[in-house]
């Protein structure tokens, strides 16, 4: 039976990784991920997992070693944040290009400069085009559940791609929440044994990983990578269905909250969705039809489904906890692309919030919903991109 506990997001993820019992783990510390990996190191030290750790000298080597280990043939994990993910950037492309199902919780944190160790989504957004699958998590429970499902998704024989499980630094990684753990055996059975595909350790049939591919074939390889991404959505949904059967917890490619009949809607990732839901309830009580869409699968981005979910709203605000300087926020750009093919589409605006751990308050959600309500009435957007909660 499920066990109810009070734990941090980092502790929850570390426990999920323990229950999965991977073969190899790359470990390098970075705030706010450190706590997750040191907990996992204790599981190794206490013999609670069979995992061999590689205590690397950098995140670049961590991802390099994970790639080597995954190519050798086995289940591989690591975790990182912020500058660490940025340092891995080159190798992220190689992990996905080589189709290696590495699982990596990313504890989202701001990027330098200026140096900031607190939560925002700049790190994972910077890695959005590296060919990794990305799952995002609102709270510790979702981070735990996503981590378990990530193995089934990444290792699916139709996909074999690396996957990031994103959770907000400090807000989720270090806050204690009520959480339901699955039994070890449930997780073990759900994830199943690792199935090898073209392992280097198959000595009878030598493989070459990472050849030089010139203009004659490179284009085709990259197109094939995109083709594989188109299969991910169905796998994510199938795995979610099995997960629901086991846990009773339902997951999709995104979550809709009171969106069905909404006139105004906020699209927002991760922990800020929780705060927003409370404020949406308050606005519903005032008679304003407000709703929320919280993407879970950000890469590959489910364009058609998200367009369908938002198509009846009059005004939508996409809120980004990361920026693309000189452009719109990254989530906004995806949602705008999703809506563009629609003949009748909602009015759209972009708010940048909560950078570098700046609080996202219920008053911010209320401010956005009030503005959306006015836009819905007037049919006019005044400012397309704006920073909220910023000191003027």
């Amino acid at each position: 039976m499920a066990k109810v506990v009070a734990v941090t997001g980092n502790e929850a993820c570390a426990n999920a990784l323990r229950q999965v019992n991977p073969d190899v783990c790359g470990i390098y510390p970075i705030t706010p991920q450190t706590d997750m990996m040191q907990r996992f190191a204790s599981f190794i030290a206490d013999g609670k997992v069979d995992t061999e750790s590689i205590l690397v000298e950098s995140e670049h080597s961590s991802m390099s070693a994970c790639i080597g280990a995954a190519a050798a043939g086995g289940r591989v994990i690591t975790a990182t944040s912020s500058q660490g993910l940025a340092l891995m950037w080159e190798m992220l492309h190689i992990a996905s290009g080589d189709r290696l199902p590495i699982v990596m919780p990313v504890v989202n944190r701001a990027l330098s400069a200026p140096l900031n160790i607190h939560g925002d989504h700049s790190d994972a957004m910077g890695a959005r085009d590296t060919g990794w699958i990305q799952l995002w998590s609102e709270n510790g429970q979702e981070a735990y559940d996503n981590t378990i499902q990530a193995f089934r998704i990444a290792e699916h024989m139709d996909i074999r791609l690396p996957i990031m499980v994103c959770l907000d630094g400090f807000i989720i990684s270090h806050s204690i929440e009520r959480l339901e753990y699955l039994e070890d055996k449930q997780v073990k059975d759900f994830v199943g044994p690792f199935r090898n595909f073209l392992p280097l350790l198959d000595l009878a049939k030598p493989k070459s990983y990472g050849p030089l591919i010139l203009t004659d074939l490179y284009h085709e390889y990259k197109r094939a990578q995109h083709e594989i991404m188109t299969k991910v959505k169905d796998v994510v949904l199938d795995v979610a269905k099995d997960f629901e059967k086991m846990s009773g917890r339902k997951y999709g490619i995104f979550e809709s909250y009171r969106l069905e009949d909404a006139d105004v809607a906020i699209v927002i990732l991760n922990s800020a969705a929780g705060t927003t839901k409370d404020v949406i309830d308050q606005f519903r009580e005032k008679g304003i039809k407000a709703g929320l869409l919280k993407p879970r699968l950000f890469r590959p981005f489910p364009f058609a489904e998200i367009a369908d979910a938002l198509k009846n709203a009059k005004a939508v605000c996409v809120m980004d906890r990361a920026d693309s300087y000189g452009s719109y926020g990254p989530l906004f750009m995806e949602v705008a692309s999703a809506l563009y093919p629609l003949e009748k589409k909602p009015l759209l605006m972009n708010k940048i919030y909560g950078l570098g751990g700046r609080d996202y308050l219920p008053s911010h959600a209320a401010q956005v919903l009030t503005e959306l309500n006015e836009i819905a009435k007037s049919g006019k957007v005044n400012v397309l991109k704006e920073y909220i909660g910023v000191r003027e």
Partner: protein
Amino acid sequence: MATPLTLKELSKKEDRFTHGHRMCSGCGAPVVVKIAMMATEYPVIVSNATGCLEVSSCISEFTAWNVPWIHTAFENAAATLSGVETMYRSLKKQGKFDQEVKFIAFGGDGGTYDIGFQSLSGAMERGHDMIYICYDNGAYMNTGIQRSSATPLGADTTTCPAGSVIPGKLRNRKNLTKIMAAHDIPYVAQASPSHWQDLFKKVQKAHEIKGPKFINVIAPCNRGWRSKTNDAIQLSRLAVNTCYWPLYEIEDGVTRITVTPKEKIPVAEFMKPQGRFKHLFTPENEGLLQRVQEEVDKEWAKLLKEAKTD
């Protein structure tokens, strides 16, 4: 020893690095790789840094590697192989794999002395059971002969060109072999394809030692050295006989010179056939040429002092 160390016997062995690769004719690197790959009967898994050897040996759907082989990026052959080796240990520990496998990483001097140095140092410190073999041709040859920290004093490269004011590289090469020895790993050696039995024995010995091993092998590059295409072995022999590239090993901290030249000849003999040093043989650069000789003499004297005499 399983195979007598003669070319006749070795020629009967199956090639692990086969013909059909696209290295330049006259390149020293494939000779180094071929000998190194022959020097064990164990199954071997190879990790290769980006560089001449990698881009020329595994293109599109063709490979010259008759063993499992992985290339990921330029700076991380050691880190990548440490992952492969760790998975091997993990699966062995769990009873999921039972064969004895050896691990070799190959990198050029750019991917080893420079950008790959951190990854190499990390892997050695962690104690992975592997041999890292650097084939050192003294520059970034594959990208058009740019200076690396292995480029010798006075050499002309495209990023430290010999001009009217600056006569080529003004700094000594990094002594990576000594730096690796300072990691206190069980085995470090320097070798040359001209002394192929010495190279063979060093790789063979390294495979029998548990833990991290580093072997630095000189590998002439006629493109970058601007030498004749049939000169690679002769030049690497001159490198040894001038003591520019002494052959020695450091096993458990004990230094042993494995080949002592019958007669130590001037380093100019090694430099003269190479176009990259041409400018040093002019009256105005006499001083620099003298400095090169002094540096070689100083390093050789140091090595003689350190070496155990039988």
